[in-house]
């Protein structure tokens, strides 16, 4: 293997992948274009917008600020891994639909992954806590209010 490539083994949404990638391949591009999991979106590629947020070993991170090679040995979860079955939604996804927590839906996968980890740590968040937790995800459509409502709703239903 040439030295600007890397070998990686990673688990994404429970499926194991072994790949040989260019070292500079961003994790977001790897997920989207190599694995075909296009639910993860790329908005800025400099770590501000949060659209590409995924869970790496359960922790939300920007997949545009990691190289695919760094995911070697990690377990990744993307938005495609949220729903329990193809025809069903995760309670968080349900709440986003019920509270109109999305419009164009481009930032939504990153927000869902961020909020999934957030609610796992804080089952009964205040509005201020939700807004703080959301502050690393930009949404240009909703003005955030319905997103906050959706997260509250999801928390209430899950309790």
């Amino acid at each position, binding site marked *: 293997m040439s030295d600007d490539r890397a070998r990686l083994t990673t688990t994404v949404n429970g499926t194991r992948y072994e790949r040989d990638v260019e070292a500079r391949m961003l994790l977001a591009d790897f997920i989207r274009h190599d694995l075909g999991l296009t639910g993860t979106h790329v*908005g800025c590629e400099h770590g501000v917008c949060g659209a590409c947020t995924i869970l790496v070993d359960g922790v939300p991170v920007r997949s545009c600020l990691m190289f695919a090679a760094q995911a070697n040995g990690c377990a990744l979860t993307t938005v495609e891994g949220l729903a329990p079955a193809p025809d069903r*939604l995760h309670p968080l996804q349900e709440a986003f*639909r019920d509270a109109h927590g999305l419009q*164009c839906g481009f930032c939504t996968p990153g927000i869902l992954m961020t909020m999934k980890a957030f609610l796992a740590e804080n089952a009964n968040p205040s509005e201020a806590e939700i*807004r703080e937790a959301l502050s690393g995800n930009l949404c240009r459509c909703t003005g955030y*209010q319905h997103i906050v409502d959706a997260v509250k709703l999801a928390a209430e239903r899950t309790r």
Partner: protein
Amino acid sequence: MTRQFGASIKRNEDARLLAGRAQFVDDVELPGMLHAAFVRSPHAHARIVSVDASAALARRGVVAVYSAQDLGDYWRPGPVIVPPPPVEGAVFNERTQVPLAKGKARHVGEPVALVIASSRYIAEDAAAEVAIEWEPLPVAADLEHAAAPGAPRVHDDLPDNVAARVRQTKGDYAAAAKRAHRVVKRRFAYDHGCAQPMETRGVVAQWDARAERLTVWDTTQAPIAIRNGLAAMLGLSERQVRVVAPFIGGGFGPKIMLFYPDEVLIPWAAMKVGRPVKWIEDRAEHFFATTHERGQVHDAEIAVDGDGRILGVKDVFLHDTGAYDPYGLTVPINSQCTLLGPYVVPSYDSTFTAIFTNKPIVTPYRGAGRQHGVFVIERLLDVAARELGIDRAEIRRRNLIPTDAFPYDNEIIYQDFTRLGYDSGDYAPMLAKALDMIGYERFVREEQPRLRARGQCVGIGVVCYVEGTGIGPYEGAKVQVQTSGKVSLLTGIGTQGQGHFTSFAQIVADQLGVAVADVEVITGDTDQFYWGAGTFASRGAVVAGNAVNEAGLAVRKKILRVAAEHFECAEVDLEIADGRVSIAGVPGRSIPLGELAVLANPMRGAVAPGTEPGLEATSYFGPESGATASGVHAMIVEVDPETMIPTIRKYAVVHDCGTVINPMIVAGQVLGGVAQGIGNAFYEQLAFDSEGQLLNATLADYLLPTALDVPRIELGHTVTPSPLNPLGIKGVGEAGAIPVGPLFAQALEDALDLPARGKELNEIPLSPCRLWELAGSPK
């Protein structure tokens, strides 16, 4: 079945979006696909001496590099999207953008060469290796500098940088000023911003040489116009070109341009290299490759009588159109017209001059110049109120157009080239409601004095506005009952998150007796629906919505006719509900819509002359003029007088968009608009230096509001249906964003008690630093 039109129905499109299954342009993957990157000008104004692509072409994985010379006859300036309005004496110098800069570049980021390679990574490697020899030229960056005599010229063949000049008048302002109790003059500045949808733009093109068909996936808001233009430019028939605008990650205006250089070049390159080509704009490019908005300087005055009633307004303003003016005069005309607001302004004298500068192109972005006009009139009213000792809410109340004055004629010409008229409205109750929601009286009389006595800097603002929405020319829709019993609904406009998949479905669901979830809406695919204009000017629900309504009604008629034949009964005896047609009062006599659709497409026998097969209809709707929506925003804000950081304590919006199809979706539109307005008012500013370099071209430095910057917003609605369309709808897309600038200026000024110190806030956007400078040292 309960009525679905008018209810907060959950959105049809959400499941796909939430599960990550919705297709956006960058999700298109095709076998053998190549990737594009542009080489862009690092200079705002510079002559191109030479372009040498040899090193780039030598790189492994690079397929082609094109510069302007390689385009041959395909190189030509784009069309003017909107021609100048029929205003006497109007000047318009048409200079539109080109696919690749030839001779010289006129703004930073203007594309000079296109690289096609096996990956975007390699395309970027190669783009850095294209050697361009530049000869920098003096730069006309600042608006007023570019307008001054002797400024460097953006277009060498023009005598100066004037792109356009339009004067519009109503009544006799000079006479009004002469008899006025007072005339107040001010200078107002409103600086550049941009839309920044979370999805950047992108184009994927595939030429199928055997089928002789071109397919283009494009983040455009106007797929049909793109198809028509591409076919003409490439020498193809419109039937050979399919343009798909799939799910789009926000548009807000800049995603409609005819044409962006990439929209012209990527399909051409795909045909040239014989392989699919993808170009996805990255965020760094987006700051230059996608259009901007704003940048005006107004010298305005208002003449009032002793009671604060407006006698007239005069406004002379400069508008920065950037390096080219493909969008004609839409933005400054909107500023000019929207200034008149919900007020009786008996005389008006407004002249604008649009100026070319060495900056990226300016086209409409949510509000499309209306902000600027609203800022000017609202600030003038605040100054007049203060000078006359009238309360700020009261001076607005006194000047509102009375309820019995509609339709109201404002005499001047609007962006749709019709006379600026307001179809309907009822402004006084909106203002009263907003004042009540924000607690205006109590705040001004009790809370503010009490808090001020404790040293807290709290202020209140209230602003009114109108928005001309839902302009022509037309949109169309086709409604069809499938043999499955589900309904398909096709329309030509694109959709960028507005909820069309649901609100359009709601219009036909009641008519055809089906659930909203059983209406499949298809938009933005030119193979599915041929005709249309696009999604802009808050017109989707108004124009396409009414076309959907007419088509739905026509299908309902067909259903009743076919069912009456089937049951051998009269149409009046039939009812349509729950996906079936039944004979009223006769249990068991019913037929599912799907079976009726089969009957309407018989395999034997003959379709009767004068009838058509299928339960299907296509309709078009074009309003005679735009429907005028209106609103009032009010806000209480507290400012830390040392750090100048504001905290919004309360924000209320009352809005009237006529008949509402889906209150939940309308609320979302207004809330999102306010958030963009807040960004515009206090966070977002494209900062150019004197060399035309953008100093904050990242999302770390161009500050989009976060969940911590946008407060909870209280919404109130009033409804005055539009008489201009059968559904009574007015547009809502841009409303929330329009009046936030003057609201911030007014409330912050009040919070810091600036007028008491002879200071005013007459510019937008503001920032803590700018507030500190403008406020000066405390008493």
